[in-house]
């Protein structure tokens, strides 16, 4: 489903973020991408969602060769993916309901379907009573739950989470991880980029470890390890 083939990413100054990365992720997998800050986790995610292009190599997502997509093709491609970020990236002038609904509205889904689905998913993430709140009226954990609801409302094939617990306390971290596991149990592939040792160890799932832009370990049932 997701394939990185000999991917390298160099920046203008000559520094290298990724070097000859190769990996594959199959449907329904839960994969953690671990490593220290600056190891290249976020670069992998940027290349996967088409926010950046590799200097060398190819990135595949299903039938798409992401590195060859034009700017105009990116919106349609991104509707196959749900993305969750450390800083939530919610639209500040929209309520929790509207933020989640937005993912369906951009896909041109009918209003009736939206009014039916959005309250259901917000109930599922425990925010049924805060639908009308704006992001600034929600806690960090609640914002992240809205972001997860938005990422999964259109039933994407993959949910990508880039340090989703980076700004959260242990209680909210636990809640968010439970949600991601639940999404995975429902059949959605999850790619989680994190440097949180406890999070990775508690999952007991596949771990790809990056260091200085290279894959140093890829284990089916991995643990967080300092390189």
């Amino acid at each position, binding site marked *: 489903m997701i394939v990185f083939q000999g991917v390298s990413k160099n920046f203008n100054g000559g520094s290298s973020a990724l070097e000859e990365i190769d990996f594959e992720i199959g449907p329904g997998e839960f994969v953690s991408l671990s490593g220290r800050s600056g190891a290249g986790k976020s670069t992998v995610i940027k290349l996967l*969602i*088409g*926010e*950046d292009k590799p200097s060398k190599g190819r990135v595949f997502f299903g039938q798409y060769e992401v590195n060859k997509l034009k*700017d*105009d093709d*990116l*919106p*349609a491609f*991104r*509707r196959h993916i749900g*993305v969750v970020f450390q800083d939530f*990236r*919610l*639209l*500040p*002038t*929209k309520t929790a309901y509207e933020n989640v609904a*937005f*993912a369906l*509205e*951009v*896909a*041109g889904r*009918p*209003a009736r379907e939206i009014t039916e689905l959005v309250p259901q998913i917000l109930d599922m993430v425990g925010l049924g009573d805060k639908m009308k709140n704006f992001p600034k009226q929600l806690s960090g954990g609640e914002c992240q739950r809205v972001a997860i609801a*938005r990422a999964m409302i*259109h039933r994407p094939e993959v949910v990508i989470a880039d340090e989703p617990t980076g700004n959260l306390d242990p209680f909210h971290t636990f809640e968010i991880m439970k949600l991601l596991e639940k999404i995975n149990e429902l059949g959605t592939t999850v790619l989680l980029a994190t440097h949180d040792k406890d999070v990775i160890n508690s999952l007991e799932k596949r771990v790809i470890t990056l260091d200085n832009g290279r894959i140093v370990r890829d284990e089916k049932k991995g643990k967080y390890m300092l390189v």
Partner: protein
Amino acid sequence: MFTILSRIFHFGFDNFRRNGWLSAATVAIMTLALLVFAGLIMFGVITNRAAASIQDKIDISVYFNTNTSEDEILNIRQSLQGLSEVSNVDYISRDKALDIFKTNHASDPTITQAINELSTNPLEASLNIKAKNPDQYAAIAQYLSSSDLSQYIDSVSYTQNQDIINRLAKIVKGVESGAIVVIIFLAFIAGLVVFNTIRLAIYSNRDEISIMRVVGASNSLVRGPYMVDGMICGAIAALVSIVIAAPITYFVSPYLNVFIPGLDIFQYFYTNIFQFFAYELLFGVVIGGLSSFIAVRKYLKN
């Protein structure tokens, strides 16, 4: 298509409403720019009227020999009216010229007495000619100096006032072309101010644009609401600027009337208020929408 369009308008209205202060600041700047635009329309009217008032003061008079009959003068008048350069020809008969002279000098007993002692009317009949354009007086004077007509004519005022007429013609031309340059320049500045205001407003929304892109919004769905937002700002600014312009023209009108007699700028504004509003609305909506369109484009990469 309809669903996408209705969502674009819905998001645009929401953007405007929820970005309260930003929208208010944009409307305020656009109002100022539209006031400048309204001022430029007024300026155009004032300069046209000033030029017309100068032009109105220019004419040439043809004085006929006293032995030229009225029929011949009227024939010449008709031939002058047939010229494409001529806008109006007034005939002043010898008797009428005498009446005017007497009226003008009624308070001077010496002149009145001298006139009464004369057995014949010494004044000549004349034609007062106004050209459509001040440049055309030379051509009219040339027509009058043709051999067919010169036998009837005693003098033409153009030859005496040629310098003044030419100078006034230059002033009229200068005022008109100067006004066009000023209008174009200031309209450009006003447009640039609005464009930069909207660019700053959209710059402050650049993170939101990137979020929309990551969620999968198409370019039209990202750009559309900002264009609608810009157009709403333009429409409201048009309305506000008309409301502000009304009292300004009311207070300024008497002062302008002193400089250009017969010019009532408030009356002009009042009778053309819907036309003014239409121009302001068009300018505001087009520049609001277009500025947003251009400003968002920068953030639609990746």
